[in-house]
């Protein structure tokens, strides 16, 4: 794998950014600064970062309710994300959408989604548009193991396969859909095994190894771009926090959570970068400091931003 040092450090920086962002959001919740609910992706950073690192800037993604990581990896402004979470007019959705609906269509982020499996057919549509316009773009479609049991998954993959569309399906298998264990909800051993049923390639990858994710998704993205149609990539990973803010983890053991925390994708990557002489402690420390500053700036921006005006509540329903 010939990743440049620059690319590697960028992936490290992005994973860290996601981690710190999520920790800040958690803090906001605990301080009652945030409304509604939200789903943190702490522990799953390598999947979002490794997969999106394979894309060109103008490629598309569709995301999920657990979407902050995808959004950051796609290059979103932390200021506007944080402002959205606080329901501010300066947020990505002008405070109308909140955590589950952050989107930036212009930059290729076709949106988080409140409906599990709701984004999968939309990804197929974006890929159809690329095929018809011959614009050479690829769509990365993220979803969870739980979503792969919804009809939208099966209908979408079949359609994309039949039409040979430039889309890559990336399933983040974190072993639970809310409280229900993967093995109780899915009859297949692996989600990637289902690719056979649609005659497309299915890959399994360690979702906590950012370079492994990069490598596999990269192959799938190249195939999609070269007209070979869709693939399904299953990233095995784990969410450290509860499903959403109201979850006390009754369905899994502390030992299991701890074992997965030891496979922390960020810690692992840091150790690898240093062990292989790719970066020095100082270089990584610099990245960490920069991330800290960016988070602090975003918090400041969000907190100081204005609320939307109630009289504008009917804005934007129709084009």
């Amino acid at each position, binding site marked *: 794998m010939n990743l440049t040092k620059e690319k590697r450090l960028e992936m490290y920086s992005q994973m860290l950014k996601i981690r710190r962002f999520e920790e800040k959001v958690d803090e906001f919740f605990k301080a009652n600064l945030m409304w509604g609910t939200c789903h943190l992706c702490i522990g799953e950073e390598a999947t979002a970062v490794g997969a999106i690192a394979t894309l060109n800037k103008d490629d598309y993604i569709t995301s999920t309710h657990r979407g902050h990581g995808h959004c950051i990896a796609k290059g979103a402004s932390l200021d506007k994300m944080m402002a959205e979470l606080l329901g501010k007019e300066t947020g990505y959705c002008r405070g*109308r959408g909140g955590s589950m609906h952050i989107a930036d269509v212009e930059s290729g982020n076709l949106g988080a989604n409140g409906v599990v499996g709701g984004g999968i057919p939309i990804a197929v549509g974006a890929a159809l548009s690329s095929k018809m316009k011959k614009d050479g773009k690829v769509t990365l479609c993220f979803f969870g193991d739980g979503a792969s049991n919804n009809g939208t998954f099966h209908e979408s993959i079949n359609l994309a396969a039949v039409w040979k569309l430039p889309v890559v399906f990336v399933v983040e298998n974190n072993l639970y859909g809310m409280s229900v264990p993967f093995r109780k909800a899915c009859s297949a051993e692996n989600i990637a095994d289902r690719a056979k049923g649609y005659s497309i390639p299915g890959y399994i990858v360690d979702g906590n190894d950012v370079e492994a994710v990069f490598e596999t998704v990269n192959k799938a993205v190249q195939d999609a771009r070269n007209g070979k149609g869709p693939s399904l990539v299953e990233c095995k990973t784990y969410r450290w926090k509860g499903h959403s803010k109201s979850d006390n983890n009754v369905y899994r053991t502390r030992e299991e959570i701890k074992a997965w925390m030891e496979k922390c994708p960020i810690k692992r990557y840091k150790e690898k970068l240093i062990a292989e002489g790719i970066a020095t402690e100082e270089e990584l420390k610099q990245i960490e400091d920069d991330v800290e500053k960016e988070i602090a700036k975003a918090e400041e921006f969000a907190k100081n931003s204005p609320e939307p005006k109630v009289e504008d509540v009917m804005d934007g329903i129709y084009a």
Partner: protein
Amino acid sequence: MAVITYIQALRDGIREEMHRDERVFIMGEDVGLYGGAFKVTKGLLEEFGEERVRDTPISEAAIAGAAVGSALTGMRPVAEIMFSDFMTIAMDQIVNQAAKIRYMFGGKAKVPMVLRAPQGSGTGAAAQHSQTLVALFTHIPGLKVVMPSTPYDVKGLIKAAIRDDNPVIFMEHKLLYHTKGEVPEEEYIVPLGKADVKREGEDITIIAGSIMVPRALEAAEKLERKGIEVEVIDPRSLVPFDTETIIESVIKTGRVIIAEDDCKNAGWGAEVAAKIVESEAFDYLDAPIKRLAGLDTPIPYNPNLERAVVPQVEDIVKAVEEMLG
């Protein structure tokens, strides 16, 4: 009488029916160990076991469809859809299958199922987790539609819904779950299709459903201090609908406000208004009927905006005062 929460009353109702009739079972996402996203079914897995309290994959069409198929063949499923918004994913099974099977099969089959779900805004869950969709289902012949507003009603109505031989859409409001009220120790049923006069008054009738019932009652209390006597009627079910109780009230008061937390355009309140003007009560109206409903917008995330799109207590007070001049 014990004072318990809406959730507790609902759970007790389901539990009693499961004890009474072994064909009754529960299925839905996270309804087992987790006890449901809103904890309605908490403890039922421990009490009845995995065979009768079944966690499903995230497969709404299959949940609704499996309810239809099992109901058609002798079971009595109580299926939970985690948020009523996701009933749209199961729309074929609900609208084309459950609702129509009996009629299409010449009245020779029945589909005794309950599909429960929480509806409504007020929790910051934004546009895809906050809708009130009762009007959609009210429009479909073959479905019954229930939306209880109190612990007493929710218990009596869930029992009636489970015993009913038709598909029943049972809509709970998230903001009602933790409200408390008196519930008798002894068994009772609240029949579908019977409105309840929640408060008597001479001056004006407010017809309110679901979360708008406590709001209307609070408004009525405020107005009482100003010498205005408000009658509050909760239809409790939209199908079947108790037109009679409403007509009686309108004939008495001559003034009507219909309060719903649904979008206004083609909301259930429009149907109720039409029922009133088509009836003998029309001649008794002293003012045009007023509809208080949500704005025709998706539910926004920001709390100020979210609050602004659905009628609140102060909106009801204002509307009553305006109508009484």
